[in-house]
Protein backbone atom coordinates (compact mmCIF):
# COMPACT_ATOMS: atom_id res chain seq x y z
CA UNK A 1 0.00 0.00 0.00
CA UNK A 2 1.60 3.26 -1.14
CA UNK A 3 -1.27 5.69 -0.55
CA UNK A 4 -4.70 5.70 1.04
CA UNK A 5 -6.80 7.66 -1.44
CA UNK A 6 -10.05 5.74 -1.41
CA UNK A 7 -11.60 2.96 0.65
CA UNK A 8 -12.26 1.20 -2.67
CA UNK A 9 -8.55 0.40 -2.95
CA UNK A 10 -8.68 -1.81 0.13
CA UNK A 11 -10.00 -5.33 -0.07
CA UNK A 12 -11.50 -7.07 2.93
CA UNK A 13 -8.13 -8.54 3.96
CA UNK A 14 -6.52 -5.09 3.83
CA UNK A 15 -9.27 -3.56 5.95
CA UNK A 16 -9.03 -6.39 8.47
CA UNK A 17 -5.26 -5.99 8.66
CA UNK A 18 -5.59 -2.29 9.49
CA UNK A 19 -8.37 -2.95 12.01
CA UNK A 20 -6.27 -5.62 13.73
CA UNK A 21 -3.27 -3.32 13.86
CA UNK A 22 -5.43 -0.52 15.31
CA UNK A 23 -6.57 -2.95 17.99
CA UNK A 24 -2.94 -3.49 18.99
CA UNK A 25 -2.33 0.23 19.17
CA UNK A 26 -5.04 0.60 21.84
CA UNK A 27 -2.54 -1.02 24.21
CA UNK A 28 -0.05 1.78 23.53
CA UNK A 29 -2.66 4.34 24.61
CA UNK A 30 -2.88 2.66 28.01
CA UNK A 31 0.83 2.83 28.82
CA UNK A 32 2.52 5.31 31.09
CA UNK A 33 4.40 6.62 28.05
CA UNK A 34 1.84 6.60 25.26
CA UNK A 35 4.33 6.52 22.52
CA UNK A 36 6.35 4.01 20.49
CA UNK A 37 9.37 4.82 18.32
CA UNK A 38 8.01 2.97 15.27
CA UNK A 39 8.14 6.00 12.93
CA UNK A 40 10.99 7.88 14.54
CA UNK A 41 12.60 10.27 12.06
CA UNK A 42 9.64 10.17 9.66
CA UNK A 43 7.77 13.36 8.81
CA UNK A 44 4.02 13.66 8.45
CA UNK A 45 2.67 16.83 6.87
CA UNK A 46 -0.93 17.77 7.58
CA UNK A 47 -2.10 19.87 4.65
CA UNK A 48 -5.57 21.19 5.39
CA UNK A 49 -7.55 23.37 3.00
CA UNK A 50 -10.65 23.11 5.18
CA UNK A 51 -11.28 23.59 8.84
CA UNK A 52 -11.36 20.17 10.50
CA UNK A 53 -10.13 20.24 14.05
CA UNK A 54 -10.91 16.63 14.85
CA UNK A 55 -9.47 14.96 11.80
CA UNK A 56 -6.35 17.10 11.93
CA UNK A 57 -5.75 16.66 15.64
CA UNK A 58 -6.33 12.92 15.54
CA UNK A 59 -3.86 12.54 12.66
CA UNK A 60 -1.43 14.70 14.60
CA UNK A 61 -1.85 12.64 17.76
CA UNK A 62 -1.55 9.40 15.78
CA UNK A 63 1.71 10.53 14.16
CA UNK A 64 3.11 11.73 17.49
CA UNK A 65 2.26 8.47 19.26
CA UNK A 66 4.38 6.77 16.61
CA UNK A 67 7.21 9.28 17.24
CA UNK A 68 6.95 10.85 13.78
CA UNK A 69 7.51 14.58 13.36
CA UNK A 70 4.41 16.54 12.42
CA UNK A 71 4.06 19.77 10.50
CA UNK A 72 0.64 21.34 10.25
CA UNK A 73 -0.06 23.48 7.24
CA UNK A 74 -3.42 25.23 7.19
CA UNK A 75 -4.46 26.90 3.98
CA UNK A 76 -5.89 29.94 5.70
CA UNK A 77 -3.22 32.35 6.80
CA UNK A 78 -0.72 30.93 4.35
CA UNK A 79 0.51 31.67 0.88
CA UNK A 80 -2.61 29.94 -0.42
CA UNK A 81 -4.45 33.13 0.42
CA UNK A 82 -1.91 34.93 -1.72
CA UNK A 83 -2.96 32.80 -4.69
CA UNK A 84 -0.59 29.84 -4.65
CA UNK A 85 -2.06 26.84 -6.45
CA UNK A 86 -2.43 23.38 -4.88
CA UNK A 87 0.31 22.07 -7.13
CA UNK A 88 2.75 24.83 -6.22
CA UNK A 89 1.98 24.42 -2.53
CA UNK A 90 2.63 20.69 -2.72
CA UNK A 91 5.84 21.15 -4.67
CA UNK A 92 7.08 23.79 -2.23
CA UNK A 93 6.24 21.70 0.83
CA UNK A 94 7.83 18.65 -0.79
CA UNK A 95 11.14 20.43 -0.40
CA UNK A 96 10.84 19.54 3.30
CA UNK A 97 10.77 15.85 2.22
CA UNK A 98 7.67 14.68 4.07
CA UNK A 99 7.22 10.90 4.21
CA UNK A 100 3.44 11.28 4.26
CA UNK A 101 1.03 14.07 3.40
CA UNK A 102 -2.38 14.01 5.05
CA UNK A 103 -4.57 16.04 2.75
CA UNK A 104 -7.96 17.62 3.38
CA UNK A 105 -9.50 19.68 0.61
CA UNK A 106 -12.99 20.61 -0.57
CA UNK A 107 -12.15 19.28 -4.05
CA UNK A 108 -13.08 15.73 -5.04
CA UNK A 109 -10.09 13.83 -6.40
CA UNK A 110 -7.46 16.27 -5.14
CA UNK A 111 -5.54 13.65 -3.16
CA UNK A 112 -5.16 11.47 -6.24
CA UNK A 113 -3.69 14.40 -8.16
CA UNK A 114 -1.29 15.22 -5.33
CA UNK A 115 -0.10 11.60 -5.23
CA UNK A 116 1.20 12.11 -8.78
CA UNK A 117 3.09 15.28 -7.95
CA UNK A 118 5.32 14.09 -5.13
CA UNK A 119 6.91 10.98 -3.69
CA UNK A 120 5.25 11.12 -0.24
CA UNK A 121 2.56 8.66 0.79
CA UNK A 122 -0.77 10.48 0.46
CA UNK A 123 -3.59 9.96 2.93
CA UNK A 124 -6.91 11.35 1.80
CA UNK A 125 -8.39 13.00 4.90
CA UNK A 126 -11.52 14.09 3.07
CA UNK A 127 -11.90 15.47 -0.43
CA UNK A 128 -15.18 17.36 -0.48
CA UNK A 129 -18.20 15.27 -1.40
CA UNK A 130 -16.01 12.38 -2.47
CA UNK A 131 -14.27 10.25 0.19
CA UNK A 132 -12.84 10.17 3.68
CA UNK A 133 -11.36 6.66 3.93
CA UNK A 134 -9.98 6.85 7.48
CA UNK A 135 -13.47 7.80 8.67
CA UNK A 136 -14.81 4.67 6.99
CA UNK A 137 -12.12 2.57 8.68
CA UNK A 138 -12.72 4.03 12.13
CA UNK A 139 -16.46 3.48 11.74
CA UNK A 140 -15.88 -0.18 10.91
CA UNK A 141 -13.46 -0.46 13.82
CA UNK A 142 -15.92 1.13 16.27
CA UNK A 143 -18.79 -1.05 15.12
CA UNK A 144 -16.75 -4.21 15.22
CA UNK A 145 -15.73 -3.48 18.81
CA UNK A 146 -19.31 -2.74 19.80
CA UNK A 147 -21.06 -5.55 17.96
CA UNK A 148 -18.33 -8.20 17.73
CA UNK A 149 -18.98 -8.75 14.05
CA UNK A 150 -20.74 -6.55 11.55
CA UNK A 151 -21.48 -9.23 8.99
CA UNK A 152 -25.20 -9.17 8.24
CA UNK A 153 -25.98 -6.11 10.35
CA UNK A 154 -28.55 -3.69 9.04
CA UNK A 155 -27.01 -0.22 9.02
CA UNK A 156 -29.06 2.88 8.24
CA UNK A 157 -27.45 6.15 7.28
CA UNK A 158 -29.65 9.13 8.02
CA UNK A 159 -28.70 12.22 6.10
CA UNK A 160 -30.19 14.92 4.04
CA UNK A 161 -29.66 14.32 0.35
CA UNK A 162 -29.23 10.60 0.80
CA UNK A 163 -32.80 10.09 -0.31
CA UNK A 164 -33.15 6.38 -0.47
CA UNK A 165 -36.09 6.56 1.88
CA UNK A 166 -38.03 9.65 2.66
CA UNK A 167 -39.48 8.55 5.95
CA UNK A 168 -38.03 7.11 9.09
CA UNK A 169 -41.00 4.81 9.85
CA UNK A 170 -38.99 1.61 9.31
CA UNK A 171 -36.00 2.85 11.29
CA UNK A 172 -36.61 0.46 14.18
CA UNK A 173 -35.52 -2.46 11.94
CA UNK A 174 -31.93 -1.17 11.84
CA UNK A 175 -29.19 -2.58 14.08
CA UNK A 176 -27.10 0.53 13.63
CA UNK A 177 -28.23 4.05 12.85
CA UNK A 178 -25.61 6.39 11.50
CA UNK A 179 -26.65 10.02 11.60
CA UNK A 180 -24.74 12.54 9.55
CA UNK A 181 -24.23 16.15 10.33
CA UNK A 182 -26.28 18.86 8.69
CA UNK A 183 -23.37 20.30 6.72
CA UNK A 184 -24.37 23.94 6.84
CA UNK A 185 -21.14 24.96 5.16
CA UNK A 186 -21.87 22.81 2.12
CA UNK A 187 -25.53 23.90 1.82
CA UNK A 188 -25.21 26.78 -0.53
CA UNK A 189 -28.82 26.62 -1.75
CA UNK A 190 -31.85 26.35 0.40
CA UNK A 191 -31.98 22.58 0.77
CA UNK A 192 -34.31 22.66 3.73
CA UNK A 193 -36.82 25.38 4.59
CA UNK A 194 -35.50 25.63 8.15
CA UNK A 195 -33.52 23.67 10.71
CA UNK A 196 -36.65 23.46 12.82
CA UNK A 197 -38.55 21.77 10.02
CA UNK A 198 -35.62 19.43 9.36
CA UNK A 199 -35.49 18.53 13.04
CA UNK A 200 -39.20 17.86 13.12
CA UNK A 201 -39.03 15.46 10.18
CA UNK A 202 -35.66 13.81 10.54
CA UNK A 203 -34.24 14.34 14.01
CA UNK A 204 -33.25 11.11 15.76
CA UNK A 205 -34.53 11.04 19.31
CA UNK A 206 -35.82 8.69 21.98
CA UNK A 207 -39.07 8.20 20.10
CA UNK A 208 -37.48 7.17 16.82
CA UNK A 209 -34.74 4.92 18.24
CA UNK A 210 -34.99 1.91 20.52
CA UNK A 211 -32.29 1.58 23.23
CA UNK A 212 -30.75 -1.53 21.61
CA UNK A 213 -29.89 0.30 18.40
CA UNK A 214 -26.33 1.57 18.11
CA UNK A 215 -26.12 5.25 17.24
CA UNK A 216 -23.15 6.66 15.34
CA UNK A 217 -22.25 10.16 14.20
CA UNK A 218 -19.00 11.46 12.70
CA UNK A 219 -19.11 14.69 14.71
CA UNK A 220 -19.35 17.51 15.31
CA UNK A 221 -22.98 17.04 16.39
CA UNK A 222 -25.51 19.78 15.84
CA UNK A 223 -27.32 19.09 19.10
CA UNK A 224 -31.06 19.51 18.65
CA UNK A 225 -30.86 19.35 14.84
CA UNK A 226 -29.99 15.88 13.54
CA UNK A 227 -29.82 14.36 17.02
CA UNK A 228 -31.66 15.22 20.18
CA UNK A 229 -29.53 16.03 23.21
CA UNK A 230 -30.77 13.08 25.28
CA UNK A 231 -29.80 10.55 22.59
CA UNK A 232 -26.29 11.99 22.18
CA UNK A 233 -25.67 11.35 25.88
CA UNK A 234 -27.28 7.90 25.96
CA UNK A 235 -25.22 4.68 26.26
CA UNK A 236 -26.37 3.55 22.82
CA UNK A 237 -24.35 6.37 21.24
CA UNK A 238 -20.80 5.36 20.31
CA UNK A 239 -19.79 8.87 19.27
CA UNK A 240 -16.89 9.24 21.75
CA UNK A 241 -15.75 5.68 20.93
CA UNK A 242 -15.52 6.84 17.31
CA UNK A 243 -13.23 9.68 18.37
CA UNK A 244 -10.97 7.27 20.29
CA UNK A 245 -10.98 4.89 17.34
CA UNK A 246 -9.91 7.78 15.13
CA UNK A 247 -6.48 7.93 16.74
CA UNK A 248 -5.66 4.20 16.76
CA UNK A 249 -7.00 3.63 13.24
CA UNK A 250 -4.93 6.54 11.90
CA UNK A 251 -1.90 5.16 13.74
CA UNK A 252 -2.51 1.88 11.92
CA UNK A 253 -2.81 3.64 8.55
CA UNK A 254 0.37 5.70 9.02
CA UNK A 255 2.19 2.63 10.28
CA UNK A 256 1.03 0.57 7.29
CA UNK A 257 2.15 3.29 4.88
CA UNK A 258 5.44 4.28 6.50
CA UNK A 259 6.87 1.34 8.46
CA UNK A 260 7.78 -0.62 5.35
CA UNK A 261 10.42 0.41 2.85
CA UNK A 262 9.03 2.73 0.21
CA UNK A 263 10.30 2.13 -3.28
CA UNK A 264 11.61 5.40 -4.73
CA UNK A 265 10.33 4.46 -8.16
CA UNK A 266 7.29 2.45 -9.21
CA UNK A 267 6.71 -0.75 -7.22
CA UNK A 268 8.17 -3.85 -8.89
CA UNK A 269 5.67 -5.66 -11.12
CA UNK A 270 3.90 -8.41 -9.28
CA UNK A 271 3.35 -11.79 -10.88
CA UNK A 272 -0.16 -12.16 -12.25
CA UNK A 273 -2.68 -13.57 -9.82
CA UNK A 274 -0.37 -13.04 -6.87
CA UNK A 275 -1.18 -9.62 -5.58
CA UNK A 276 -0.78 -10.28 -1.88
CA UNK A 277 2.80 -9.85 -0.79
CA UNK A 278 4.23 -12.29 1.67
CA UNK A 279 4.27 -10.99 5.19
CA UNK A 280 7.25 -10.92 7.48
CA UNK A 281 7.05 -14.09 9.55
CA UNK A 282 7.18 -14.18 13.31
CA UNK A 283 10.44 -16.09 13.37
CA UNK A 284 12.20 -13.25 11.64
CA UNK A 285 11.13 -10.85 14.34
CA UNK A 286 12.82 -12.74 17.14
Amino acid at each position, binding site marked *: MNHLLSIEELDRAGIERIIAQAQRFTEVSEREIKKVPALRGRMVLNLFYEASTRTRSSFELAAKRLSADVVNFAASGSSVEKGESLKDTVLTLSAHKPDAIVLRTPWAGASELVSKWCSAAIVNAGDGKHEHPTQALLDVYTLQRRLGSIDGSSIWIVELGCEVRYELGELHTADVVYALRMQNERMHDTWVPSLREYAAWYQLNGRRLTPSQVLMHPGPVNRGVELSGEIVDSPQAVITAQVEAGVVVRMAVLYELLAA*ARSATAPPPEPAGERGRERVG*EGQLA
Partner: protein
Amino acid sequence: MQTNEKVVLREEEISSALTRIAHEILERNSFDPPPALVGIHRRGAILARRLHQQLEELSEATVPLGDLDIGFYRDDVGTRPDAPVLHASHIDFDLAGLTVVIVDDVLYTGRTVRAAIEALFDYGRPERVQLAVLVDRGHRELPIRPDYIGKNLPTSTAEHVHVRVRELDGLDEVAIAEPTAVASL
Protein backbone atom coordinates in the same frame (compact mmCIF):
# COMPACT_ATOMS: atom_id res chain seq x y z
CA MET B 1 12.75 -29.36 6.01
CA GLN B 2 16.49 -29.13 6.43
CA THR B 3 18.27 -32.43 6.45
CA ASN B 4 21.61 -31.27 7.87
CA GLU B 5 20.21 -29.90 11.08
CA LYS B 6 21.95 -30.78 14.28
CA VAL B 7 19.92 -30.96 17.47
CA VAL B 8 21.95 -29.46 20.30
CA LEU B 9 19.38 -29.40 23.13
CA ARG B 10 16.60 -31.91 23.64
CA GLU B 11 13.49 -31.64 25.76
CA GLU B 12 15.07 -32.79 29.05
CA GLU B 13 18.07 -30.52 28.55
CA ILE B 14 15.88 -27.49 27.89
CA SER B 15 13.83 -28.32 30.95
CA SER B 16 16.88 -28.68 33.22
CA ALA B 17 18.40 -25.48 31.79
CA LEU B 18 15.21 -23.60 32.73
CA THR B 19 15.20 -25.17 36.20
CA ARG B 20 18.79 -24.06 36.73
CA ILE B 21 17.96 -20.52 35.56
CA ALA B 22 15.00 -20.43 37.97
CA HIS B 23 17.31 -21.40 40.84
CA GLU B 24 19.84 -18.75 39.82
CA ILE B 25 17.16 -16.07 39.70
CA LEU B 26 16.07 -17.18 43.16
CA GLU B 27 19.63 -17.00 44.54
CA ARG B 28 20.53 -13.65 43.07
CA ASN B 29 17.40 -11.69 43.97
CA SER B 30 15.98 -10.70 47.32
CA PHE B 31 12.33 -11.54 46.58
CA ASP B 32 11.32 -8.54 48.63
CA PRO B 33 9.54 -7.81 46.38
CA PRO B 34 9.91 -10.76 43.96
CA PRO B 35 11.36 -9.97 40.54
CA ALA B 36 9.06 -9.78 37.49
CA LEU B 37 9.54 -11.92 34.40
CA VAL B 38 8.95 -10.36 30.99
CA GLY B 39 9.23 -12.58 27.91
CA ILE B 40 9.90 -11.32 24.41
CA HIS B 41 7.37 -12.43 21.79
CA ARG B 42 6.90 -15.19 20.99
CA ARG B 43 9.23 -17.96 22.10
CA GLY B 44 10.74 -15.81 24.82
CA ALA B 45 7.23 -15.26 26.19
CA ILE B 46 6.60 -19.00 26.25
CA LEU B 47 9.90 -19.69 28.03
CA ALA B 48 9.08 -16.90 30.51
CA ARG B 49 5.76 -18.60 31.28
CA ARG B 50 7.57 -21.87 32.07
CA LEU B 51 10.20 -20.11 34.17
CA HIS B 52 7.41 -18.27 35.96
CA GLN B 53 5.72 -21.48 37.02
CA GLN B 54 8.98 -22.93 38.36
CA LEU B 55 9.94 -19.72 40.10
CA GLU B 56 6.57 -19.45 41.86
CA GLU B 57 6.83 -23.07 43.04
CA LEU B 58 10.39 -22.61 44.29
CA SER B 59 9.87 -19.26 45.98
CA GLU B 60 6.24 -19.71 47.10
CA ALA B 61 5.82 -16.06 46.14
CA THR B 62 3.65 -14.39 43.53
CA VAL B 63 5.87 -13.47 40.62
CA PRO B 64 4.54 -10.89 38.14
CA LEU B 65 4.63 -12.09 34.51
CA GLY B 66 4.38 -10.04 31.32
CA ASP B 67 5.31 -10.15 27.67
CA LEU B 68 6.63 -7.67 25.16
CA ASP B 69 6.36 -7.34 21.41
CA ILE B 70 9.33 -5.22 20.47
CA GLY B 71 8.36 -4.70 16.84
CA PHE B 72 7.73 -0.97 17.28
CA TYR B 73 11.18 -0.54 18.78
CA ARG B 74 13.25 -2.24 16.11
CA ASP B 75 15.96 -0.18 14.46
CA ASP B 76 15.32 -1.51 10.96
CA VAL B 77 11.95 0.12 10.29
CA GLY B 78 11.79 1.34 6.73
CA THR B 79 14.31 -1.17 5.45
CA ARG B 80 11.89 -4.10 5.38
CA PRO B 81 9.65 -4.89 2.43
CA ASP B 82 6.46 -4.84 4.49
CA ALA B 83 5.36 -3.46 7.84
CA PRO B 84 5.83 -6.28 10.36
CA VAL B 85 2.74 -7.85 11.88
CA LEU B 86 2.76 -7.10 15.58
CA HIS B 87 1.18 -8.35 18.75
CA ALA B 88 0.09 -6.35 21.73
CA SER B 89 2.34 -6.36 24.77
CA HIS B 90 0.95 -7.26 28.18
CA ILE B 91 2.49 -5.68 31.24
CA ASP B 92 -0.32 -5.11 33.70
CA PHE B 93 1.72 -4.50 36.83
CA ASP B 94 3.68 -1.49 38.04
CA LEU B 95 7.37 -1.79 37.17
CA ALA B 96 8.51 0.89 39.61
CA GLY B 97 10.88 -0.55 42.21
CA LEU B 98 10.93 -4.04 40.66
CA THR B 99 13.77 -6.12 39.31
CA VAL B 100 12.69 -7.21 35.84
CA VAL B 101 14.15 -10.29 34.19
CA ILE B 102 13.82 -10.11 30.40
CA VAL B 103 13.51 -13.62 28.94
CA ASP B 104 14.33 -14.55 25.35
CA ASP B 105 15.13 -17.71 23.46
CA VAL B 106 18.29 -16.78 21.58
CA LEU B 107 20.78 -13.98 22.28
CA TYR B 108 22.59 -13.01 19.08
CA THR B 109 23.39 -9.41 18.05
CA GLY B 110 21.73 -7.90 21.13
CA ARG B 111 19.47 -5.63 19.05
CA THR B 112 16.29 -7.35 20.20
CA VAL B 113 17.32 -6.94 23.84
CA ARG B 114 18.16 -3.27 23.29
CA ALA B 115 14.67 -2.78 21.84
CA ALA B 116 13.13 -4.72 24.73
CA ILE B 117 14.86 -2.53 27.32
CA GLU B 118 13.65 0.59 25.54
CA ALA B 119 10.10 -0.80 25.34
CA LEU B 120 10.18 -1.78 29.02
CA PHE B 121 10.98 1.78 30.08
CA ASP B 122 7.85 3.04 28.34
CA TYR B 123 5.83 1.10 30.92
CA GLY B 124 7.60 2.49 33.96
CA ARG B 125 10.94 2.69 35.71
CA PRO B 126 12.19 -0.68 36.94
CA GLU B 127 14.77 -0.74 39.71
CA ARG B 128 17.01 -3.20 37.86
CA VAL B 129 16.88 -5.13 34.59
CA GLN B 130 18.41 -8.58 34.11
CA LEU B 131 18.53 -10.84 31.07
CA ALA B 132 17.87 -14.58 30.85
CA VAL B 133 18.35 -16.49 27.58
CA LEU B 134 18.03 -20.14 26.71
CA VAL B 135 20.85 -19.95 24.16
CA ASP B 136 23.70 -17.47 23.78
CA ARG B 137 25.12 -17.90 20.29
CA GLY B 138 27.61 -15.01 20.41
CA HIS B 139 28.28 -12.36 17.71
CA ARG B 140 27.10 -9.37 19.76
CA GLU B 141 26.85 -6.02 17.99
CA LEU B 142 25.92 -4.09 21.14
CA PRO B 143 27.34 -3.99 24.68
CA ILE B 144 24.79 -6.42 26.12
CA ARG B 145 25.49 -9.47 28.25
CA PRO B 146 23.10 -12.01 29.74
CA ASP B 147 22.77 -12.64 33.49
CA TYR B 148 21.38 -16.16 33.10
CA ILE B 149 22.33 -18.50 30.23
CA GLY B 150 20.80 -21.90 29.48
CA LYS B 151 23.58 -22.88 27.09
CA ASN B 152 26.49 -21.18 25.36
CA LEU B 153 26.40 -22.23 21.73
CA PRO B 154 29.37 -21.29 19.57
CA THR B 155 28.07 -20.68 16.04
CA SER B 156 29.13 -19.07 12.81
CA THR B 157 27.06 -16.13 11.59
CA ALA B 158 26.02 -18.18 8.57
CA GLU B 159 24.36 -20.81 10.73
CA HIS B 160 20.77 -20.59 11.94
CA VAL B 161 19.68 -21.46 15.46
CA HIS B 162 16.14 -22.83 15.72
CA VAL B 163 14.47 -22.90 19.10
CA ARG B 164 11.32 -24.99 19.00
CA VAL B 165 8.74 -25.11 21.77
CA ARG B 166 5.84 -27.53 22.16
CA GLU B 167 3.27 -24.76 22.37
CA LEU B 168 4.09 -23.54 18.85
CA ASP B 169 6.13 -26.23 17.16
CA GLY B 170 4.86 -29.44 18.76
CA LEU B 171 8.19 -30.33 20.41
CA ASP B 172 10.95 -28.84 22.55
CA GLU B 173 14.37 -28.68 20.93
CA VAL B 174 17.21 -26.40 19.90
CA ALA B 175 18.87 -27.13 16.58
CA ILE B 176 21.61 -25.59 14.46
CA ALA B 177 21.07 -25.54 10.71
CA GLU B 178 23.93 -25.43 8.23
CA PRO B 179 23.94 -22.53 5.78
CA THR B 180 23.38 -24.76 2.73
CA ALA B 181 20.03 -25.87 4.05
CA VAL B 182 18.76 -22.29 4.19
CA ALA B 183 19.05 -21.83 0.45
CA SER B 184 16.62 -24.70 -0.10
CA LEU B 185 13.97 -22.98 2.01
